[in-house]
């Protein structure tokens, strides 16, 4: 029988204090500039209590909810991606000694940060972390900085009860309730899974224990025992959340649809709308492309090499002498969506999209990945008729 506990809203402060006491850097959703972002959490007052969100294509607004929900919103503006994979970091520093005829020593910038506790991470973003583990850590060559930051992560996930109009995790099989284990590694997905229950006058969290570490935390917070009925109530909430989603991608056909669509006339159509602004790739929780930037002082004696997020939408991304290999916007959009929904599966054994909907919300032109996938499905004749997007 699963280990179910009940946490009161007032237990959140105890929980956060306990995590901090144990040396974790607690990271979770917080309100900044009228936007829910991922940031450092020192107490429950840092959480966006009573704040909801409205998301549509090219639209993001926060709103005041009529309850005190701590997690009453969908995907935050930014995922947890920058926690383990910052937008810019030093790969090495070098010093040149002119007296020795040009001589430099490379010094690795070692990551010695505290382990992270992800508090309130959504199923979509949690799956994105698991995908990044495959892309960045489970490789022949791994990203040593990512791997160092990821080690010892504690996950207190929150099942999503209020998807936005842009969400389509249910169709991707990545939410709104996280899978108990990472399908690639078989490891537990979370240490604790919370579902926020607000029903009339009652407001509490159903906590499902995923690991011994999670149990230990639940014990330390002195969470009361829950029942199978509580767990059933939690599952009802995510089932309703899944049923409320209107956007979808047919994950069973989309790989072959994209594979067959390289010469589709749809690319011209979408390129006429795409601004090449790179927003979609900056908010995508799985996009991992980076470039290198060399920074040196005026004397040329000290230099640093920085790894910086890059985007396949920028013209320079594919540049080799003579010009970029993907010069047109249609080729760049094709690269992005084909990678997400097709070639990612060939590379890593899963799709590269978790259905968080951020690329739809944050596209200034309102380009909708579900709509494009559905259109390509229709045009190729390979899509499922059930995969209608909300157009």
């Amino acid at each position: 029988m699963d280990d179910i506990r009940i946490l009161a809203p007032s237990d959140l402060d105890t929980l956060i204090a306990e995590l901090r006491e144990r040396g974790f850097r607690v990271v979770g959703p917080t309100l900044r500039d009228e936007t829910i972002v991922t940031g450092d959490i020192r107490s429950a007052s840092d959480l966006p209590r009573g704040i909801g969100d409205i998301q549509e294509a090219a639209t993001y607004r926060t709103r005041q909810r009529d309850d005190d929900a701590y997690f009453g919103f969908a995907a935050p503006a930014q995922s947890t991606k920058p926690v383990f994979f910052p937008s810019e970091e030093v790969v090495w520093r070098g010093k040149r000694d002119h007296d020795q005829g040009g001589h430099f020593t490379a010094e690795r910038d070692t990551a010695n940060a505290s382990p992270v506790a992800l508090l309130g991470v959504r199923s979509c973003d949690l799956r994105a972390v698991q995908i990044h583990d495959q892309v960045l850590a489970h490789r022949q060559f791994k990203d040593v900085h990512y791997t160092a930051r990821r080690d010892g992560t504690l996950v207190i996930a929150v099942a999503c009860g209020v998807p936005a109009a842009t969400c389509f995790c249910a169709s991707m099989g990545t939410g709104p309730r996280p899978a108990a284990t990472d399908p690639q590694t078989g490891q537990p997905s979370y240490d604790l899974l919370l579902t926020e229950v607000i029903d009339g006058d009652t407001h509490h969290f159903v906590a499902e224990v995923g690991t011994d570490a999670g149990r230990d935390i639940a014990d330390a917070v002195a969470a009361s025992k829950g029942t199978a009925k509580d767990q059933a109530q939690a599952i009802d909430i995510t089932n309703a959340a899944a049923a409320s989603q209107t956007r979808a991608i047919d994950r069973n056909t989309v790989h072959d649809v994209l594979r067959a669509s390289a010469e589709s006339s749809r690319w011209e159509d979408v390129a006429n709308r795409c601004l090449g602004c790179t927003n979609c790739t900056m908010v995508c929780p799985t996009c991992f492309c980076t470039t290198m930037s060399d920074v040196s002082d005026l004397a040329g004696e000290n230099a640093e090499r920085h790894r910086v997020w890059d985007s396949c939408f920028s013209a320079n991304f594919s540049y080799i002498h003579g010009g970029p290999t993907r010069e047109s916007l249609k080729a760049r959009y094709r690269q992005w969506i084909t990678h997400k929904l097709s070639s990612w599966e060939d590379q890593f054994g899963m799709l590269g999209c978790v259905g968080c909907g951020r690329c739809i919300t944050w596209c200034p032109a309102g380009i909708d990945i579900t709509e494009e996938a559905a259109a390509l499905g229709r045009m190729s004749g390979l899509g499922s008729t059930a995969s209608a997007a909300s157009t």
Partner: protein
Amino acid sequence: MTTAPVDAGITDSARVTDSAPGTDSPDPMVPRRYAITKVREDTRDTFTLLLEPVDGPPLTFRAGQFTMLHAFGVGEVPISISGDPRGLDDDGNPAPLEHTIRNVGAVTRALVNAPPGTQVGVRGPFGTTWDVADAVGNDVVFVTGGIGLAPLRPAILDVLAERERYGKVLLLYGSRTPDDILYGAQMRRWADLNDVNVQRTVDNAPYGYKGRVGYVTELIARAGFDPRSAWAFVCGPEAMMRPAASSLTGRGVPASHIRLSMERSMKCGIGLCGHCQLRELFICVDGPVLDYARLEPLMNVREL
């Protein structure tokens, strides 16, 4: 998640990437220091950089692999290694690490203009290999143009090191003009001493030029080799490799016997930065050497 290290449980067999051999470096993103011993001018825009390690033994590599060469404070570029995989020079002495590069950008300019003694950063070797030994017992056709001969040179040296194990060996080489011919003296030596059938052509020639004028693909049609069993190793710009591979298959060489070396933008060399992707391939770790059976559908889509 706290119960196991993040890199535990690597079990996924579904993936196709990471074909290239790994490295024992604790962090493949941090370069090793090498000192420039010599910069040899090969043509008006092409130079060969000879490097010796500052600390530790010289790196070992296989034909087809590349390194990331770093000019301090300027940047880093992927360059194929053009030396002998046995680590020896023409006279059998230990050889410096050799890269032939075209002076076409900021980093390559900094590298070719650096005085001897200058230290540069080297990461690698990375990438897949020509594996010419697959052609043992059969004819071998090298098709290349311009500086494309440089990444093929280690493969040619692999064949010549065991010349008697192969059938006919052809080197079909094209360059823009007679002044752009790379390794000219060496090609003559291979022809004279190693029984290599070297055929050269130039795209454009000055008045009075006695050699052949035309594209390298035209050489394929006339070259004497057994297409059903021959292996072809092709390196050059894509605009040359595409018709070359097509001519080879047109003569009956199986696509699986044709290997090409692809060039893409690369920032990491280890399959992490995403720049070199060609549909499902990371050219740095699944290539640069790939067989034509795999590449043909990808090369035939513009801007893929």
